[in-house]
């Protein structure tokens, strides 16, 4: 089986996003598609999946031209897709989400629920996700589990082509290994797997061939054996990146934030740590270890059941985010769409959201000053496109959305910046920029807490790392004096 795209073009309201993309995939192959944020990967995938019509070009399967007018057409041809954006129905059970397209029925046409649950369980087990109870309401699962359900959903009836758009972004540890094993098994069974990811190490490990997309064009295709991470980054970014993580000098200053004995029933227990000015501290843990809850609690967005948060030489015990912000805290949450942005508003509106009262003249917002501030941030963080200020945030690519969130918080002039998975779904080049920005901020005296499930990142970009396991801090180490294995051991909870 061969899947071919020829000269695919796509524009959104006149803005050209894909400029004639060619792509060939064969059965039993893992075809990786890489590219910077906004390069057009997701758009390409939506076209493959029938979720978006192409403006021009053609698609062939086995040499035969196919028309894809709806996701239904794609399903019928055995193309199954896992989208970048989560797309489960949160209120329904895992079983329903999995079998939505076709339930087992009894005579009379009614759904046979016991059979449905059994089938869902069987499916989850067969692909190594047996830990998920199919009766659970999908919205109550952790993000990682939801992602696994999402993948399982694509495998309900043997696909011929499986398209995965950044499936690993929210996975770590054993979950990630399970996913890789699954992909390899599918490939060996003759499935074509189209794989999009910003984690290049992963791509090199998994892919049979790699296609690099830049600004809506294919600018190269290669094989893992013939390239390197650095070369790929260079291709994607259009320039060479010398170094991913800036060299850190651990010149930590005065204490900036004290967290002592902080607990919140069921989520985390007795968490204590201190952040210092000029310091970047990583907080590593497996997905679901309670880090995000902790961050929200420190930020005053959720009440603690015990313990205290205090800004050094300042107030503590924040009961609202407003108080925390006033004291110099800023929080970039892990869920851009859900709690980072107002997607329907302009980028300028979003960037100014936390500092609405800072640009007023009298009771009114001073639009001139506001425009200047926004332009400054857009330039400083290189948010693209450059004229994005008046664009609806929804239309920005994921990485640029993330930068807009960051811009919003930098404008508050924080002393302590908490970043929860800030590089999830962000391309390598942009990551490097983000690391450099974090580094710059720390040099200016900010203290940064970097929450991440990416071990390499946690060790590479920070001075010190805290490890969390099941709601407790189980380890602490200097980042340059600890190995990945040691950190993992703390995170999993086994003593080495």
């Amino acid at each position, binding site marked *: 089986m061969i899947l071919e795209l020829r000269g695919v073009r796509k524009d959104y309201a006149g803005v050209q996003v894909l400029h004639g993309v060619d792509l060939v995939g064969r059965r039993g192959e893992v075809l990786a598609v890489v590219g910077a944020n906004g390069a057009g990967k997701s758009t390409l995938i939506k076209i493959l*999946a029938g*979720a978006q019509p192409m403006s021009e070009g053609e698609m062939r399967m086995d040499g035969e031209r196919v028309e894809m007018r*709806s*996701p*239904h057409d794609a*399903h*019928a041809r055995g193309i199954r*897709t896992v*989208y970048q954006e989560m*797309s*489960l*129905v*949160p*209120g*329904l*059970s895992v079983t*329903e989400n999995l079998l*939505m*397209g*076709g*339930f087992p*029925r009894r005579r009379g*046409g*009614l*759904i046979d*629920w016991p059979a449905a649950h059994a089938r869902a369980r069987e499916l989850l087990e067969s692909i190594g996700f047996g830990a998920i109870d199919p009766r659970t*309401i*999908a*919205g*109550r699962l952790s993000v990682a589990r939801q992602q696994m359900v999402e993948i399982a959903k694509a495998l309900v009836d043997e696909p011929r082509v499986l398209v995965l758009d950044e499936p690993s972004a929210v996975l770590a540890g054993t979950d990630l290994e399970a996913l890789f094993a699954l992909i390899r098994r599918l490939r060996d069974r003759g499935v074509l797997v189209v794989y999009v990811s910003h984690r290049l190490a992963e791509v090199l490990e998994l892919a049979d061939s790699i296609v690099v997309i830049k600004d809506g064009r294919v600018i190269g295709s290669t094989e893992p054996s013939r390239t390197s991470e650095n070369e790929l980054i260079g291709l994607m970014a259009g320039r060479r990146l010398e170094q991913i993580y800036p060299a850190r000098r651990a010149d930590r200053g005065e204490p900036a934030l004290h967290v002592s004995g902080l607990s919140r*029933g069921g989520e985390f227990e007795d968490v204590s740590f201190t952040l210092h000015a000029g310091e970047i501290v990583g907080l590593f843990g497996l997905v679901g270890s309670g880090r995000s809850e902790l961050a*929200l609690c420190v930020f005053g*967005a*959720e*009440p603690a059941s015990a313990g205290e948060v205090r800004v050094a030489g300042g107030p503590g015990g924040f009961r609202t985010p407003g108080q925390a912000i006033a004291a110099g805290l800023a929080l970039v949450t892990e*869920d851009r769409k*859900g*709690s980072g942005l107002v997607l329907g508003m302009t980028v300028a509106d979003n960037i100014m959201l936390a500092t609405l009262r800072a640009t007023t003249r009298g009771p009114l917002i001073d639009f001139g000053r506001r425009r200047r501030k926004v332009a400054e941030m857009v330039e400083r963080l290189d948010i693209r496109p450059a004229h994005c200020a008046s664009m609806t945030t929804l239309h920005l690519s994921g990485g640029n959305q993330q930068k807009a969130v960051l811009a919003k918080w930098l404008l508050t002039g924080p002393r302590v910046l908490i970043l929860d998975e800030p590089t999830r779904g962000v391309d390598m080049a942009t990551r490097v920029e983000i690391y450099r920005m974090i580094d710059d901020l720390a040099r200016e005296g900010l203290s940064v807490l970097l929450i991440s499930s990416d071990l390499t990142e946690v060790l590479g970009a920070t001075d010190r790392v805290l490890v969390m396991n099941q709601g407790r801090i189980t380890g602490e180490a200097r980042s340059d004096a600890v190995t990945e294995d040691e950190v993992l051991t703390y995170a999993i909870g086994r003593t080495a």
Partner: protein
Amino acid sequence: MTDQLAGPAPATTTARGRRLPRLVVGGRDLTVQAAFVTLIVLLVATAALTSDVFLTPANLTNLLKQMVTTGLLAFGMLVVILTGGIDLSVGSVVAFSGIVTAGLVAGLPIPLAMAVGVATGIGFGLVNGVLVARFGLAPFVVTLAALTTIRGLAFVYSEVPIAPEDPAFFTLGSALAGPIPVSTLIMLAVFLAGGIFLTRTPAGRSIVAIGGNAETVRLAGINVRRHVALAYTISGACAGLAGVILASRVGIAQPSVGVAFELDAIAACVIGGASLAGGRGSTRATFGGVLVLVLINNLLNLYGVQSFWQQVLKGLIIIAVILVQRTNRVRT
């Protein structure tokens, strides 16, 4: 499979808040259901203890009769609400189907006339559904316009009430099966069949899923438009049926009947815990909501509360009920 058609609101809204004591049976959290049943039991007990009329057969039959219209409309409304929509036109459809049926009785056999009445409801529902589903118009506005248009059409059909002479016209509305009115049985049958439809058929599940995340359902290859249109058609059918039954019960069809009926139907769904954002609601709890409303009305009447104060109290009680419900909702 529980009757609660779908789970709690997305994580962001449930993320904050206190922990309250929960009632968990066999791994399922039944606190909300239990609180709700308690509420109804409390209402009934208060009524039974404080009024010697409440438990008389006459009053109970009354209660059963009085829940028919709200019940039928509430079920149809629930289906629409599950998709994330709303149907404001049901009161006008009640008027239209009733007056058309009464008007046709002169020339057609009664069952046929009634079938035509229900069919007009189906027709209006379908038009609403197509406008919402096919053209992507806001349900609130489409059905608001329908409310006005259909009410006008009812008056255009007949400005004056129509009272069919044939006493057989009254049968549907006044017949009893043992102690239970036939109309109540019809309403219960609708709820029963509706419950099965929503929990156990692919179409029903699709409707629930659409309210949760329509794009996902579309990407799963399901025809979202058709299912949304179906939901409004069901609501129209229920309203048509309610109109026919009401006309038969009153024995006279008025073009002015049914003003603000939609509000009680919506209130019943919401008291039953349905989310107006779609995707969450249960037939059983909606039926509970109907019970609560009818009980409140009946109680206020039995206590002889004066009409204006009835309105004041009814509003306050609704707030109280959803407040209680709210406090009991899952807060993780």
